């Protein structure tokens, strides 16, 4: 009985292995979780690129915010002998051992989004992600140019920074970008308070900032969700959000630009300026893998291109470290176009179902 059972299974195996021998490149992707709209767009971007049509087989694993899960799934990928491992790490530390195992198994590892802090840089092949400090610098530069244009002295610009989750790569970079400008131009930085990248904490932080610093006129939020909270808190006490800071309005600056609401807020003048954080890493990673497959050289660190959005037309471009960055003037058409870019597959569906509720 048992004998016949196992022999019949073996036949199934032979049939099964045939289609797998075709030349699909197997990519194992360990995503840290699904906590935000940005993350959802990031996952969707990877899934839409690594399809069988493009010659790939993607093994996706959601680690639910736990490094232990990520390490387990990377070990799984190693045992399955995938061709490439892509990791969006949840934390920067604690990767040495498992990356060493991947290296021993001769599987290239591509890190996306957040970085890894390892003793030996050769443990991973390359990294793709955002230059968060540049995002911050661009935003601060825009603020400097805007206030100069409106004859506001830097010392009259009273800024409060609602920070992201302390220690996250995005928080560190964006905070450093602002600090650079404070040093360079002499803005008045009133306070730095944590907002944990959420609307609720953004609201609380703004509430207490308004009570503590009556002269506050610029709020630098480190993501859109915090900005939504800050706007609500301002409106709750009757303060107007806008760019006319000489006449008592409060200027909101923000980052990400993934959600439609954020861009609409820019059009309505509630958010003065948004620094884009591009979640579409899929095509970048794909082109790196294509280069590796063709034995071409790749650079260790690749930054994705990121724009800066504003509805204000007075500033057209920014000059930072000898590079010119154009400021995109947001129009309803542009917002529509951009949203279509993100409207791929299930990402749209989740958005729609949220709206329906």
């Amino acid at each position, binding site marked *: 009985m048992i004998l016949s059972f196992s022999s019949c299974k073996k036949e199934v195996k032979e049939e099964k292995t045939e289609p797998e021998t075709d030349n699909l490149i197997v990519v194992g992707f360990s995503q840290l979780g699904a906590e935000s709209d940005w993350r959802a767009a990031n996952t969707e971007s990877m899934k839409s690129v690594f399809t069988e049509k493009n010659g790939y087989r993607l093994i996706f694993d*959601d680690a639910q915010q736990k490094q232990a899960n990520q390490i387990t799934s990377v070990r799984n990928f190693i045992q399955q002998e995938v061709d490439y491992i892509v990791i969006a790490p949840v934390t920067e530390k604690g990767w040495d051992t498992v990356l060493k195992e991947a290296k021993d198994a001769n599987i290239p590892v591509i890190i996306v989004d957040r970085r890894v802090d390892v003793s030996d840089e050769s443990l991973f092949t390359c990294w793709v992600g955002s230059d968060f400090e540049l995002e911050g610098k661009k935003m601060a530069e825009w603020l400097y140019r805007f206030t100069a244009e409106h004859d506001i002295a830097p010392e009259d610009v009273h800024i409060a920074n609602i920070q992201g989750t302390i220690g996250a790569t995005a928080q560190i970079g964006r905070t450093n970008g602002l600090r650079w400008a404070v040093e360079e131009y002499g803005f008045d930085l009133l306070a730095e308070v944590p907002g944990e990248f959420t609307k609720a904490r953004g609201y609380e932080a703004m509430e207490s900032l308004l009570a503590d610093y009556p002269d506050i006129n610029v709020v630098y939020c480190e993501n859109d969700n915090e900005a939504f909270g800050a706007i609500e808190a301002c409106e709750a006490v009757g303060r107007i959000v806008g760019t006319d800071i000489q006449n008592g309005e409060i200027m909101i600056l923000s980052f990400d630009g993934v959600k439609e609401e954020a861009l609409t807020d820019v059009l309505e003048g509630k958010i003065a300026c948004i620094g884009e954080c591009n979640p579409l890493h899929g095509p970048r990673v794909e082109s790196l893998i294509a280069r590796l497959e063709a034995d071409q050289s790749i650079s260790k660190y690749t930054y994705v291109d990121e724009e800066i959005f504003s509805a204000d037309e007075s500033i057209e471009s920014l000059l930072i470290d000898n590079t010119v960055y154009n400021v995109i003037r947001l129009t309803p058409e542009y917002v529509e176009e951009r949203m279509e870019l993100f409207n791929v597959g299930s990402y749209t569906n989740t958005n729609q179902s949220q709206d329906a509720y």
Partner: protein
Amino acid sequence: MKKKLMNMSDTNLLLTITIVVFVVMYLCAIIFEGKGFLKPQTFFNILNANAALIILSCGLSLVMITGSIDISVGGITALVSMCCAVYLDYHGGSVFGSVMIALGIGLAFGLFQGLLIAYLDIQPFIVTLAGMFFARGMTTIVHTNPFNVENEAFVALKETRIIVPGMGSYNKNGTYVNAYVEIGVIVALLVVAIMFVLLRKTRQGRAFYAVGGNGQSALMLGINVKRTKFIAHLICGILAGIGGYVYFLHVGSGAASHASGAEMNAIASSIIGGTMLTGGVGNIIGTLFGVLSLSTIQNIVSSAGLDQAWWTGITIAAMLCLFLVIQSVVMARKKKMTKK
């Protein structure tokens, strides 16, 4: 064949089912997921990642055999991880000290919960529910944010690998990679062995089965029912402490969300392993295979790239149902046959 089936005790029968299902499942994994599962290291990885769960499940099987339940073990694991992490990194503690802390926490929970359940006769579910909330709450009070431990001695211990001879495999370059297990696996297997001997070969072990099977008869046989229940919970608490440390040794970090749902996984493993919630039936070897079955399912789901994490949950639910149905069908058939 029929005679053999009849001669088997309930415990052994369920154990056989568990082992057969595990072997069939692993064969299926090899067939459908291919070469990855053929490598011994895949199996060792499952052991490495689930050593803590094996220990926690041993504790749960024990209290379930005694007819009780403990849902605080996941919380204790998180508390142990966080306390040890804080002690090692913020107070310059030693590895030995951290092991003592882990054992101390487990012992304290076991003592207190055991006293309440056995001698004050409070429902075990309620007591350990409170224990779970307390442990989770305390974890956040000890330290809020998750962090990785950097204590050198500890990291060295965490990275220690025990090479399993002759089980390695060749990588794509043709280099031989040794197969290994972590220290936690050795601890877990030791715990399994000790618990097996305790339950099978000692007077105390038989007392656990007797109390779980029928408390009244046990009392009449002269078994101290309260003391037996107390000891079961005490051991379960200590095992939660040990399991917590093994978990900590595997992840190397402290976080309030650590081991969330571990108590439920431990209960599920025990049930898959043939332990009955009603008490009196169960086997530690079955529990070991229960954990292996559960984690093999998780491994298959993630290897198949079924991206949504809830797939794991759904498969485990289906598997639990399957096991319970098999258990009750087989038991019913056996009863029928014995009558004839």
